[in-house]
């Protein structure tokens, strides 16, 4: 077995009639056991990339190896080893989650116990038909069907869309548990917080290219950005940008003779850095360098 779960070199895809290629030369590596989040605005090419990796779409150029196999030519042996949670499905409405999960378990040689899977995704004891469930609960059915085959590599395409905050936290717990078992996970999401919490590494795609590939802490040079210190002085909000926030706080503490009213120290959020990346996304080389990308 190769050491890399996903290896992509120079991937290209141009839909007929489109002005620009949807995927314009992407390189990506995902190691076994890694959780990688692919971020990017709508239409950036995320889903195209993921669907090529899943074997749903043909590519126009480049090399792709997923679990050592070209997904365009992969057979059932390969499908046993991957799990797919795709976007937008409205099938299975006339079945209960348990019926669906039990049926799909039959496709795999060594499935998880269907009842365990239902418990794991928080659908234990749900007796209604899928068509009567909320959007968030239906998404859990999708996830259950994606993991019932005990995949080595799991694709999650915007898995928590429509989840309430509690359901999202529960889902994160589940992804962490799967990752702890050694499952490699490729995740696309629009929620920066989700990416930050779950992913070992982030790849930002825009205009069909990867403009940054880094850990959540270092994306876009985030770790080295100046911090912002906020406080209140004479009832008015004050704010200062600094590379040495601890020193500034110490000076403020001395000046106030103890507690500083309204004190807060902020780093740029992942969302700040991400939006900046997209705004300047036309210069991938410089940004990758600035971001300390691997």
């Amino acid at each position, binding site marked *: *077995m190769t050491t890399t779960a996903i290896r992509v070199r120079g991937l290209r895809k141009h*839909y*007929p009639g489109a002005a620009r290629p949807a995927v314009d030369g992407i390189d990506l590596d995902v190691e076994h056991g890694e959780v990688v989040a692919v971020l990017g605005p709508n239409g950036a090419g995320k889903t195209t990339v993921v669907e090529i990796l*899943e*074997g*749903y*779409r043909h590519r126009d150029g480049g090399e792709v190896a997923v679990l050592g196999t070209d997904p365009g030519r992969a057979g*059932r*042996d390969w*499908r*046993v*080893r*991957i*799990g*797919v949670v*795709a976007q*937008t*499905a*409205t*099938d*299975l*409405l*006339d*079945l209960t989650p348990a*019926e669906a999960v039990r*049926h*799909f378990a*039959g*496709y*795999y*040689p*060594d499935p998880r116990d269907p009842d365990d899977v239902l418990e794991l995704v928080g659908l234990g004891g749900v007796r209604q*038909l899928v068509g009567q469930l909320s959007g968030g609960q239906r998404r859990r059915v999708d996830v259950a*069907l*994606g993991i019932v*085959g*005990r995949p*080595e590599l799991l694709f999650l395409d915007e898995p928590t869309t429509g989840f309430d905050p509690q359901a999202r936290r529960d889902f994160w717990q589940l992804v962490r548990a799967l990752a702890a078992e050694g499952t490699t996970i490729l995740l696309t999401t629009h929620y920066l917080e989700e990416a930050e919490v779950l992913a070992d590494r982030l790849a930002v795609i825009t205009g069909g290219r990867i403009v940054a590939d880094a850990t959540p802490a270092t994306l876009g040079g985030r770790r080295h950005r100046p911090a912002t210190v906020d406080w209140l002085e004479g009832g008015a909000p004050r704010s200062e940008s600094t590379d040495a926030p601890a020193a500034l706080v110490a000076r403020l503490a001395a000046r106030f003779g103890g507690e500083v009213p309204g004190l807060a120290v902020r780093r740029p959020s992942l969302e700040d850095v991400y939006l900046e990346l997209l705004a300047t996304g036309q210069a991938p080389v410089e940004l990758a360098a600035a971001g300390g990308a691997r």
Partner: protein
Amino acid sequence: MTAAGLAPLPSALPLGLARGALEVKRFFRSREAVVFTFSLPTVLMVLLGSVFGDHGEPAGVTSSQVLAAGMIAAGIMSTTFVSLGTDIAGDRDDGTLKRLRGTPMPAAAYFIGKIVLVAVTTVAQIALMLAVAMALFGLTLPATVGDWLTFGWVFALGVTSCSLLGIAISSTARNARSANAITQIPYLALQFVSGVFVTPITALPDGLVTTASFFPVKWMAQGFRSVFLPDSMAAYEPAGTWELDRVALVLGAWCVIGLVLCLTTFRWRRGQDG
């Protein structure tokens, strides 16, 4: 460390039968499907049969009995061509096929599942229509082994050809709703030109009968009339005989055409997906 290396992959036949059980369960849970698919041919048969009444045809046969034999052919087309065409377009539309493509389920299992669904619904449909026709119109079941054999092969060839054509036509539909319209038009038109609603078929203009002769419904209806009506009624067929050899030939040819169309046009994805 892969599971595939340890345990063998489940084989297509048991998975197909499991899919069939699931399809049948889903079918009977979606009530509109049951009501419409099932009742439409029977309701039409009852209404038209009441209109035609007991208008005597010779040999003690009534118009409603002639109608019933032809309506059974239409009933088969309904549960095969119309239902399957709409159903598979729906599977493409709602993500069923995409989800299945993401699993190690073999493609054959999907089609075995559809065959089971069509077999169950068609047998139930024909049983219902026969029961109603026997109760209301005095239709009698075939009396001889030969007639039962004819019934069997006309049924088998009719179901096979119309199912394959249903699968093929599903690929031309953009979504499930358009698939319903696309399948209804040939379904209704062929019933008219094939002498299902208008009996005997010789009452139709020659041009229509010639057109109908290129398609399966006319021959299925003719085959079923040979089974359920006395042989003297063969005089009311276009050729003056039951032409069973030609029934077999045309339905067999449509099986081959349907298979070729399926193999060349079947898509797992919707049209707009690149």
